[in-house]
């Protein structure tokens, strides 16, 4: 008898006790989030849990700094106390960053920066490069990221996964609640996120002995071992692998394609199966092919770079294509470094208009502007894939803020047949993601003016008009209930994103072309 993980068992990544995503992996950004966001969440919760209970009840407050598991006061309090040494260590790094940004660098206004290296706090000494910014007067710095990962501030023992059943499509917002065992069917296991043990579990088909071995290596005994065993079921008969060409929208910004036997998956975010009441025909992990030859990531937002999905499909993935990042700053940590620490061995970084042959298809990286709060962030790209004669663009949340850019791109790459475009035209304020990384907070109006907006109707229309595609699909809107785990959008038919995308669909259809706003799943071509 062989065993596989049940379809409805989620394995959620945990870093330092919180739901794992990109900015919690590099130690420098983790230090910022722990001090600037998590500490204040827990402090306010411990001093008045009622405030959190009240907030969680109100839909409008969704995505705010609230502990959803507010009824587990004692558990959270004791976890928080136990995690104090970890906070203390990260606190050293936090203080060192603060010292560099607020005390050391501001003393320099154009003179030689050599002395800076002598006065760097020990947490950062030998791990930074300093230089002047564009004005030649304002000192700036970058992390030597591999050395940061090699430091005492990156500790894989802080990583865990939490097993537990998923019972419905909608997922609770996870970024603000400590990841503890709240219900008897949840199991928190200490294991680095890059552990091959996880691949073994996700690959499935474990023998009795393998399962026992994993259980032992997870340190699970007695009841906990029993609970762990209950997450498995007899391995299903392998079904025949499909081989035909297909282009399939599988939810949010995630699209699967197979062309002449080569498989591609863009911005993976998948749903679970095996529980009643889920949306019919949704694409779940079970619908993935054995092998994903190329995994493409457009940008480093948690709805496009979802750790939970990434680690679960890791064993199937050949090459990961990502946008190149050269900043190594707080707001733009290297995506390659993150993915490698996450256990992906073959990661290829590309830059604007780089072209790669990927099996039967060709991939071109297209410039991606906007949607990043005007921060200096390079790790973002659109992907153009040429499947033989047909070209498909995945523009993700790219905003057409420079109206002539796509026209110029079109001159280089030619016509595009199919365009996928995100139109979350009014996004969250930039501080919703980046706030904890700011040295000093922005005032509210400035913050609100720098929203993480996708294209609105006019901008999307200009893209479409420039690229002249036959088919336009609006996607990446967070319309699928399982996105609730990392997004908090309260859509109704009057939401600007809905109004704008309706207009775009109409505009394209009026031209006699195909257009739609995608939701849940759609097979676009076979």
């Amino acid at each position, binding site marked *: 008898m062989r065993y596989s993980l049940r379809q*409805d068992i989620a394995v959620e990544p945990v870093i330092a006790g919180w739901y794992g995503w990109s900015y919690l992996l590099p130690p420098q950004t983790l230090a910022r989030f722990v001090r600037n966001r998590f500490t204040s969440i827990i402090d306010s919760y411990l001093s008045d849990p009622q405030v959190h209970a009240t907030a969680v009840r109100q839909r409008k407050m969704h995505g705010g700094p609230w502990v959803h598991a507010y009824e587990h006061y004692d558990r959270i309090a004791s976890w928080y106390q136990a995690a104090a040494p970890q906070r203390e260590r990260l606190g050293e790094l936090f203080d060192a960053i603060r010292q560099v940004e607020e005390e050391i660098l501001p003393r320099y206004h154009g003179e030689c920066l050599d002395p800076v290296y002598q006065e760097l706090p020990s947490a950062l000494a030998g791990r930074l490069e300093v230089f002047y910014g564009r004005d030649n007067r304002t000192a700036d710095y970058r992390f030597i990221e591999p050395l940061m990962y090699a430091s005492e501030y990156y500790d894989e023992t802080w990583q865990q996964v939490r097993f537990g059943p998923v019972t419905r499509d909608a997922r609770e917002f996870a970024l603000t609640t400590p990841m503890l065992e709240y219900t008897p069917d949840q199991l928190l296991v200490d294991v680095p996120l890059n552990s091959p043990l996880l691949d073994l579990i996700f690959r499935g088909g474990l023998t009795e002995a393998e399962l026992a071995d994993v259980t032992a290596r997870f340190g699970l005994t007695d009841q906990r071992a029993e609970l762990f065993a209950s997450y498995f079921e007899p391995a299903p008969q392998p079904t025949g692998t499909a081989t035909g060409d297909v282009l399939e929208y599988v939810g949010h910004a995630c699209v699967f394609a197979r062309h002449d036997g080569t498989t591609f998956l863009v911005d993976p975010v998948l749903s679970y199966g095996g529980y009643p009441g889920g949306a019919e025909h949704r694409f779940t992990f079970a619908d993935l092919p054995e092998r994903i030859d190329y995994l493409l990531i457009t940008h480093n937002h948690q709805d496009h770079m979802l750790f939970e999905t990434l680690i679960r499909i890791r064993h199937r993935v050949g090459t990961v294509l990502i946008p190149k990042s050269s900043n190594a700053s707080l707001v733009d940590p290297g995506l390659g470094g993150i993915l490698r620490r996450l256990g992906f061995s073959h990661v290829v970084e590309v830059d604007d208009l780089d072209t790669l042959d990927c099996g039967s298809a060709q991939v071109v990286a297209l410039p991606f502007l906007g949607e990043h709060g005007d921060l200096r962030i390079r790790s973002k790209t659109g992907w153009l894939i040429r499947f033989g004669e047909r070209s498909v663009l995945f523009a993700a949340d790219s905003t057409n803020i420079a109206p002539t850019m796509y026209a110029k791109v079109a001159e280089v790459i030619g016509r595009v047949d199919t365009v996928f475009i995100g139109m979350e035209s*009014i996004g969250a304020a930039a501080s919703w993601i980046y706030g904890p990384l700011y040295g000093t907070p922005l005032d509210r109006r400035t913050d609100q003016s720098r929203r993480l907006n996708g294209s609105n109707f006019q901008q999307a229309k200009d893209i479409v008009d420039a690229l002249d595609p036959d088919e336009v699909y609006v996607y990446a809107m967070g319309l699928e209930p399982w996105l609730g785990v990392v997004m908090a959008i309260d859509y109704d038919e*009057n939401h600007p994103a809905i109004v704008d995308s309706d207009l775009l669909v109409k505009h394209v259809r009026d031209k006699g072309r195909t257009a739609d706003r995608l939701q849940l799943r759609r097979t676009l071509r076979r």
Partner: protein
Amino acid sequence: MQLSDLLTDIFRRHHERPALRTAGRAWTYAELDRLTNALAGRIDRECAPGRRVLVVGEHSAEAVIWALAAMRSGAVHTPMSPGLPVDRFEDSVRVAQAGLVVCLDRESLVRADKAGVPALYSGDVGWPTEVTERRPSGSPVAYSIFTSGSTGVPKLVDVGHGGLLNLCRSLRRLLDITPGEQVLQFASLSFDASISEILGTLYAGATLVVPVRDQASWLGSVSRHLAEHGCDLAMLSPSVYARLDDAARRRIRKIEFCGEALGKAEFDRAIQHSRVFNAYGPTEATVCFSLAELTSFTPAIGTPIDGFRALVHDPETGDHSTSGTGELVIVGEGVALGYVGGRAEEQRVFRTLDGERAYYTGDRVTLHDGTLSYLGRIDEQVKRLGHRVNLAHVESHLSARLDREVALVRLGEEVVLVTTADGATEEALMARVRSWLPAWEAPDRIAFVDTLPLATSGKLDKNALRERIAAGSGGASANDPELRQVLDVVTTVLGHQIDPNTSIFDAGGSSLAMIQIQVKLSQIYGEQAVEAAFAALDYDFVVVDFLRHLHGADVVRRESPAETVFRQVETELAALRAELPLLRRETRRATQAPDQAGRTVLLTGVSGFIGGHVLDQLLPTGRPVLVVSTTGSDRVLAEHRARFGHDAADYDLVRVIGYGDLERWVDQREGPALDGVAHCGYQVNHLLPLDSQMAGSVRNTVLVVRAAAAFGARSFAFLSAASAGEHFEPLSAAALGAVADPYSRSKLICEGYVNALADVGCAVDCYRAGLVYGHQDGDRSYLKDDWFTGLIALARRLRAMPRLEGYVPVCDVRELSRTLLAAIDGRSSGSAVVVHRTYELAELLHHAGLSPTDVLPPAEWFELARGSGQAHLPLLAAMQSALGGRGWRTPQREVDHDILGTLFGTPQEAPRAGARA
């Protein structure tokens, strides 16, 4: 042609025709000619030619006559409202450099004396008859009209003679005014609409009718006059029209709307009774610039009348063109001569284009093929969330949708929807408004006022509204203890003080701070009230706004029907509790056959769907049944027989009486001994107001409860409704308020009455059933008015399903009947919610033969349903009312068979994605 010559000509032409009429008094053109000539002579004696004569009076034939006299005199006719404050009166006299004031009332005379200006009191002058020699005036100004200047100081528009004849001709032709027609004189003389009423009527030889002021308000008097006498033509602003009684509106043959943009709501109302005209024209263009008859609603304001042409001006390029969208520029000799008083830059609206006088209106229009469409005031254009929003349009749209008057008022950056309170809360109204409008068009908040004030012009007085609302929000002073209290809470949380008009976010607060404030305020004002106020604030916290919303909620709570009803119920319940023991003690109970002693069951609702099934199951038990029905006739049993196919003999032990009979028995303290009561008789109607339910089904329930006490019942099973709530709590106003529709509320109230039976030792069970199905062939007619199956059927026809929240709780009628009977058999399971199986959206889609892509937001679906013409409207309303709540929240599966599947003939189980075997 000079105005005085025009009038002389008019009087000569129509001569013996009736010109002016008021209650009990009429003047022919000839009479009016002599009279106004004499009065004009009197004015000329007192006032130098070319100076302004102020005529202070309105709403009487006498005032009209003096106005005509002033027009014919050598002075310049300058009507003034009698209602001005003293200061304003003096300012007006000064700005007008008046040579004379004609006062139609004593008070104005006193004011004129104080202002040091020569004055006449009309009562002193009387009706002179001597005709005097008249000299031509020669002034270029025909009349002057006061308008409000931007500085708050009055300003005059000097109107020349050039546009008058064109005005008269156009009105006659376009409004189709014929001699002998009765034209209403409504406008205050100080408003230039009165000029077109007077001149338009007289030029055409028609009769001007001034209603007599016999009500507290002029509007009331006019409304009453119209209801009684009607008129051929009325020139009114949409705001005034909206305030007329329906009886008055019906009797207006032709209505010319003027003064404000005509909204669809007013048009729709007017077109039912009248020919509808829409006029547009500023005072600065001799009253009327364009006029069109409307047979369907458009924002069209017609084509320019004779003597005018229209250009559109693009403020950005400075271009003028004859088509397109932009600021309307009126060109022609009817353009006024200019302003007197006011600031110098205000004169800039008057310019010369190609040698002709031009007026820049400040109105945004579209000019296409010579036809104008009104888009709104240029300064009513606001940019919100990146979109250009026309408040006038939104206003018109909303008043049509809400079917009542609304105003959108700008207060700084805030857009406030002002309307009259109608019992709905601000939140409820806001929710509806938000469901209709894109975010950028939705108002920021709603303010309720008692009435929407009208200015003298008959237009909605937005300035007054603005002041009133601003006062409302800023009215809380720092000394106000309540304001102090809220500010203290904010200070505690933020660690510093903030301005009560500032958002806490602008004051450095976070969402955490906001919720901390919410929790602390909840301790003071109650959780629900505070949460409602926060929702109304859209989770931005401003102290004064919070207090306003909190009090808004207070007002609504005071008026809440739930509370009123609860008080009433409490009183009645106390009386019932006192009566029940007496009934039980004092009633003589008879049993006919000794072997049946104590076995009789009282059953109601037999002609209903569920009650019928209960009787069906009761018959084989051989127990005597006392059926209480609304008719009291044996036909109930005949129908039951036909429905269930029983033998006549099966009913040997069944007796039918009416509720009246039962009441008599109870009151006479004499009747049959009962064992148990199954009360299923209830009018299922989600639309019936609570009052009707109270007088109907609830009253019957109380009677059945009294009967149960009187005739010694040991058990009582009441069929309640799942929509009354998932939890059994003591009856309270809050519990009532939590239930959305009157039907479910009435069930909750009935439960309260039924529970009183516990005091006399009767076991009480209330079963809150979900939607009950399991119809057999004979039951099909019961589905006719069933909102839910109606909804599914309609969804199937429309190929669209509304997005239902939560689950749909369903019961099987046979199971339910068994539960009810078990209770009166002494096998009670206690009061309970009875849901045998829930259905989720996916299953409903399956039963309707639809797919997830066919799901629409409810608002859209109802729109579609209404538009399709396929839906029975009351049923649709019932659906809407029933879907108002949040739906059932927990899935349930107590029975295996697919109740709905059987009903719809789709017996196969709905596919459930991802279900494990």
